[in-house]
């Protein structure tokens, strides 16, 4: 549906995006995660046309602006309007006909839980209320593509759950959703696809199960791990991590496990505890941004 090819964007001397490639399939909920300054917001702003790329191309030619809903990173509103008055005006700006406008506004308010305060002025509204309003304006007219920059920011746990439900419902109704967030728990709950960005590059991308491999790791806790033994184990090729008296190994690599256990038996070291741990998105993310994973773009 959206094809982003070799996109680059600089702000002065800072390269916000560097030859980035991404394909967003229709009907997906695509999560973008990465540290601050990774280029997530810039990418989303490029997609909605607020900034222009220096190089590369974005193909969303099948869509017109009316079919794209956008929730900015820090949504601001002209505070002197009531919620429903503002949504009606935005709806007209979007080209929604007068006949449909009332229904569209009502639906957006109902979905975001703002119906009961629709006649309240935005001035002095809580962060959560403004965030829900930002979603309400983005989902008006059921856009084919929803671009959400930090949609869960500033919401209490109940509102976060409600926001997730709204996104899943919109996705079931046919909307493709591209969202950027720092909340990894929400990503695992709603996203079908994921891309990890760092310094303007995509480090990992694809289906959730591809980005977070289903593999588990084995943690061996020892009574004592002498330096010479640790050196011998380190010499074994493979992804081996040490943490005090613990050794962390990929569960799926039988050869590696056997080799490590062989060293431990030879050295007469007792394994006091053995546990299996599923790799979380957080660990994948931290490994990725700290350079543990090879950048896919390079």
């Amino acid at each position: 549906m959206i094809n982003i090819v070799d996109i680059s964007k600089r702000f002065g001397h800072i390269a916000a995006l560097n030859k980035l490639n991404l394909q967003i399939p229709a009907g997906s909920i695509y999560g973008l995660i990465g540290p601050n300054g990774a280029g997530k917001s810039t990418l989303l702003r490029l997609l909605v046309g607020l900034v222009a790329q220096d190089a590369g191309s974005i193909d969303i030619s099948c869509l017109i602006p009316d079919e794209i809903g956008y929730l900015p990173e820090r949504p601001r509103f002209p505070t002197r309007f009531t919620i429903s008055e503002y949504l009606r005006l935005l709806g007209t700006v979007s080209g929604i006909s007068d006949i449909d406008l009332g229904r569209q506004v009502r639906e957006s308010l109902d979905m975001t839980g703002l119906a009961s305060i629709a006649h309240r002025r935005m001035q002095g509204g809580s962060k959560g209320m403004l965030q829900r309003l930002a979603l309400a304006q983005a989902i008006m007219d059921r856009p084919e593509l929803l671009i959400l920059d930090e949609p869960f920011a500033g919401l209490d746990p109940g509102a976060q759950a409600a926001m997730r439900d709204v996104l899943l419902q919109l996705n079931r109704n046919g909307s493709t959703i591209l969202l950027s967030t720092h909340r990894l728990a929400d990503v695992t709950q709603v996203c079908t696809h994921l891309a990890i960005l760092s310094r303007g590059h995509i480090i990992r991308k694809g289906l959730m199960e591809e980005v977070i491999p289903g593999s588990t790791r084995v943690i061996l806790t020892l009574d004592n791990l002498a330096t010479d033994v640790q050196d011998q184990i380190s010499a074994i090729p493979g992804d081996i991590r040490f943490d005090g008296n613990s050794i962390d190994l990929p569960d799926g690599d039988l050869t590696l496990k056997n080799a490590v256990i062989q060293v431990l038996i030879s050295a007469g070291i007792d394994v006091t505890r053995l546990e299996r741990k599923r790799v979380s998105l957080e660990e994948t993310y931290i490994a990725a941004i700290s350079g543990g994973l090879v950048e896919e773009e390079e």
Partner: protein
Amino acid sequence: MSRLRATVSLIITDLFRSLTGGIVVAGAIAFLLVAILSVTGGVDRNYVVHLVGGFFGLYAMLLGWLVSDRTNRSSSYQILVRMPNRSMFLAAILIVVIVTCVVLELVVTVLSLTRLNEPIPLGAWFEIAPAWFSLVVFGATVGIHLSELVRYGWSRIAAYAALGFLLVGVNLNGVDGGRSLGASTRWLSRLSINPDRIGWIAGIAKALVWPISASFRVARSEAYSLWEGLAPALLIFAASLIFLLAVMTFDKKDLVLPED
């Protein structure tokens, strides 16, 4: 058309529900009180033509600047991303400024009529209105260029330089009704600038300002040539070119707007 109307409505409602909107109205009322109603012995046609026309030309420029800067906020993201093109947003700003100025100008003019020494014939308004309107449109488009909203690289510096050049031309042409060319050259001499040396610059400046001075001449109902009669149209043509330039710079600009 309904999209443009909604955007105009959004901008104008936001403006007039704020303190800034009150200040805009108060400015026009203050002008009326100070420049028209408090003049002892009443005012004549030429006085009203120059003062009201000139004031609202400048007011349109200030308002163009103000409204553009007010819309240069991240709260405009929601509007901008919904528009088929950015020029519609600038068109909405221009309409807001023109409508506001025309309404205020109309109110001020109607209230000024009570202070006229002799009534202005109905037919004369067909000469005055186009001159005043063209000045408002011209002022509004120049004002938009002075704002951060359409700034692209060094464009705002160029806009200020052009405005300064225009003011020199206004000064040399004496369109304020009081200054003669002689007075202007004396003013330049005081700044140690030899008017003869900058004669060609002054010539260009005067030529650029000619549509403004000619429009005033038409509005004063002095004898005017066919070309002078077309001056208001020429001013609106110049305004459209300036607006086109604003559209071009705004269209290319990266919108990383400041927070409210």
